[in-house]
């Protein structure tokens, strides 16, 4: 009787059940992310790593005797883990809040995300060093073995337990926040932390405990997930992006919404797996895109909060380091010498990534939009250039241009969807949209899955210049880089660029001056995507390969890292950042998996201590020196340092 379009009821219910279980994990995780986001205004990217810590915590407890053979420790099973691990992970969370996250409450939201991205890279990187990609097995506890025969299918007991326990935890959390005194403190502190402090409540401590609680939930989800999924360092990495999409779909300001959306999307994912398996990995992101079109505030969201774009630009426009004409000449001369000093392929990698980071900086630095999905443009262009060159025999320049065209079109589409939301949401949305492209490339036939497109012919430029000659290839890449760099300089110095910067500084004011800011943002985003595509397409020709790495979100993170290291919103910052990161990756290559840990640590250190980046800091130093020269007689005035309102936690 259940024969639905050729799908057996066993398969259908099986998938719904799996979906429901995934949904329980989504609900528990997005609940934590939503609470942390709501209270602390932190987009907790490290949530996935904390979930992974929970699963490993359970595994460690089970293997205590093997890990510490001399101490005679007992092996603590599932039920112990269920109690101890969330506490332990919560404690780690409290420590992380104290040491790192607290430092960025008063800063632009972007820094919170950058910091937690860095922390996630460090934690997951360290586990990757020790455990690699191999998953550890964690058995179902004895008391929950077996199952119930429901007639149409067999229902494992452990899965029933996960669904029931997960729902109970979610309901209890909802009750505490919406119906208790403690919850009232939390809700009030979300709105006006200063006033709640003035009533005598220790808000900073409450924020720490809230973070610890949200993280503890992730830890609990990790323990519950251990017997179902493999315990591996990567287990948190993909789920966090899905969780961000769930939070976007559910909308802000509703704990109930986060829970319901999580469950619902899990089931939808399960159903998709039954009816259209290819779509299962992307269905949540596609639903997110649809929701954004029709209900930008999310299904349960009360309103889109009018966050300012992040103005974290470090540039001093009058600085000599911002003079594009000068530096274009310097790069032309220096770039011509470079291949005689270093290995040309290495130099070309630098140039491609410098262009990529500069393109990214156009959106992040100059418009203040925290995009986190530029890998989609870089990678899609790489794939299209590689495919058109190798399968269709396109000449090199046309192959790259095809890539640029696709990246630009994709940029227009993603920009159109993403500019409906601001601040952290913008980051989450671009990240999720980029995942659609990634999963498409994993599954499509022309992209060759894990292998990617290899042995791409470099061809002849305009049919004449043989690009298989390293120096020919190099100068072609240098010309592309210089053209891209000049274009970006031209854009940011134009009247259009001035409007972009005014959007960054004060969007409502720009709107009131009569500019349709959304159109400016969209155009900037599209241009940036096209330029990122130029970098990606060129890279595919240089290295003769397009692979999933190009589309992976770590590539987006690389663009962010290069921009941050160099100096957000500075002209030279992304170039300097690319040189630093590429050199670092080369020098540290011998360290193997540790590279990712070092990169994550660089994120954290730059966010905490060198937010202006190398170029931004240099520009400050030059400006100070010029100031001293101009007024050598004047005694330095003791200007009071900024730092005024009490750091109550959530910046308003």
């Amino acid at each position: 009787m259940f024969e639905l379009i050729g799908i057996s009821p066993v398969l259908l219910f099986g998938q719904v059940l799996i979906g429901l279980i995934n949904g329980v994990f989504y609900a528990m995780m997005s609940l934590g992310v939503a609470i942390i986001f709501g209270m602390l205004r932190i987009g907790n990217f490290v949530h996935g790593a904390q979930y992974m810590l929970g699963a490993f915590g359970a595994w460690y407890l089970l293997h205590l005797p093997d890990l510490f053979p001399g101490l005679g420790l007992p092996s603590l099973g599932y039920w112990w883990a269920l109690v101890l691990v969330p506490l332990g992970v919560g404690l780690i969370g409290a420590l992380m809040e104290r040491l790192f996250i607290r430092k960025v409450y008063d800063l632009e939201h972007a820094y919170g995300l950058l910091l937690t991205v860095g922390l996630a890279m460090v934690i997951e990187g360290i586990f990757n060093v020790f455990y690699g990609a191999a998953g550890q097995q964690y058995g179902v506890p004895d008391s929950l073995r077996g199952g119930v025969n429901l007639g149409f299918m067999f229902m494992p007991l452990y899965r029933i337990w996960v669904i029931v326990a997960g729902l109970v935890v979610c309901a209890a959390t909802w009750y505490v926040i919406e119906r208790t005194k403690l919850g009232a403190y939390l809700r009030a502190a979300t709105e006006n932390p200063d006033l709640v402090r003035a009533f005598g409540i220790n808000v900073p401590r409450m924020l720490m405990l809230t973070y610890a609680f949200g993280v503890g939930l992730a830890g609990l989800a990790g323990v519950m997930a251990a017997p179902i999924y493999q315990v591996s360092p990567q287990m948190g990495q993909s789920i966090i992006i899905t969780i961000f999409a769930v939070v976007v779909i559910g909308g802000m300001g509703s704990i109930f919404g986060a829970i319901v959306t999580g469950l619902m999307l899990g089931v939808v994912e399960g159903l998709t797996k039954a009816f259209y398996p290819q779509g299962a990995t992307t269905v949540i992101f596609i639903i997110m895109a649809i929701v954004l079109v029709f209900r930008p505030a999310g299904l349960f969201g009360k309103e889109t909060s009018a966050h300012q774009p992040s103005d974290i630009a470090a540039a001093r426009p009058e600085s000599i380091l911002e003079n594009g004409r000068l530096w274009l000449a310097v790069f032309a001369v220096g770039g011509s010498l470079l291949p005689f000093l270093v290995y040309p392929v290495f130099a070309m990698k630098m140039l491609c990534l410098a262009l990529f980071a500069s393109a990214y900086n156009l959106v992040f630095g100059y418009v203040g939009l925290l995009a986190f999905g530029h890998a989609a443009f870089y990678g899609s262009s790489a794939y299209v250039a590689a495919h058109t060159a190798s399968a269709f025999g396109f000449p090199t320049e046309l192959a790259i241009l095809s890539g640029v065209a696709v990246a630009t079109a994709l940029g227009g589409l993603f920009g159109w969807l993403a500019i409906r939301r601001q601040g952290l949401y913008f980051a989450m949305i671009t990240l999720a949209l980029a995942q659609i492209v990634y999963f498409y490339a994993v599954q499509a036939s022309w992209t060759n899955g894990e292998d990617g497109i290899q042995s791409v012919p470099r061809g002849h430029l305009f049919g004449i210049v043989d690009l298989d000659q390293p120096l020919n290839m190099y100068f072609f890449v240098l010309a592309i880089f210089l053209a891209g760099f000049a274009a970006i300089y031209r854009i940011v110095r134009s009247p259009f660029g001035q409007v972009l910067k005014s959007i960054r500084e004060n969007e409502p004011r720009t709107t009131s001056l009569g500019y349709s800011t959304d159109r400016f943002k969209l155009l900037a985003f599209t241009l940036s995507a096209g330029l990122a595509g130029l970098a990606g397409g060129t890279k595919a020709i240089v290295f003769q390969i397009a692979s999933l790495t190009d589309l992976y979100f770590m590539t987006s993170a690389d663009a962010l890292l290069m921009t941050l290291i160099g100096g957000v919103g500075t002209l030279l910052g992304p170039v300097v950042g690319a040189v630093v990161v590429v050199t670092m990756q080369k020098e540290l290559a011998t360290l193997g998996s540790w590279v990712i840990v070092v990169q994550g640590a660089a994120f954290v250190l730059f966010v905490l201590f060198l937010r202006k980046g190398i170029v931004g800091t240099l520009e400050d130093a030059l400006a100070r020196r010029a100031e001293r020269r101009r007024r050598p007689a004047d005694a330095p005035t003791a200007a009071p340092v900024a730092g005024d309102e009490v750091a109550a936690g959530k910046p308003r």
Partner: protein
Amino acid sequence: MTEAADLAVAGLSAWYGDSQALHGMDFAVRRGEVVTLLGRNGAGKTTTLRSIMGLLRRKSGHVRFAGEELLGRLPEYIARKGIAYCPEERGIFSSLSVEENLDLPPVVAPGGMSHADIYALFPNLAERRRSQGTKLSGGEQQMLAIARILRTGATLLLLDEPTEGLAPVIVKQIGQVIGQLKARGLTVLLVEQNFRFAAKLADRHYVVEHGRIVDTIAAADVAASMSRIENYLKV
């Protein structure tokens, strides 16, 4: 005066970033008094209350309450000493119901008013206890904001322009409430621009200009000093 002073502010200066907002405020409030800070917009009245409450970080001078130096203490500590703050924008929480708003500030000392007392004083609030806090009218929100800090047992109330933007009948009602609070022995430091309202309530008026006290007027001298006061407040 100082020996009986409940709140003694001396040489209080405060900054927002690099710009100085208070330039050495000196005044005192005795236990059980109602004292106002009068002055034009931007004179530093609100900043004074926020500084007393510890909500401004950059400040110098002295704020002594019941003999204890509070300058440099965190807001949560200051509140626990028995000072309650009712901000100008009222600060009613939209995600909390009326009753949750009322119950939010923790009790810091015995002797606060009970729910029954509060609802007797503000009958409107009793009717609307289940409503969302910000669904109340402006006058009701103001009453809620005052009612909220009466539960806690705080002995010094800092009220920032409680009559701003309210209808005359509501202003009158709030005046009666402040009178009753005084009768209960509470100390009130009131920031006002509405002098006619303040004149009926206060024992003393301090005139604030450019971040310092420029004049002190006792209640008995108000009638004689009318033109002087109008001069201070006229725009």
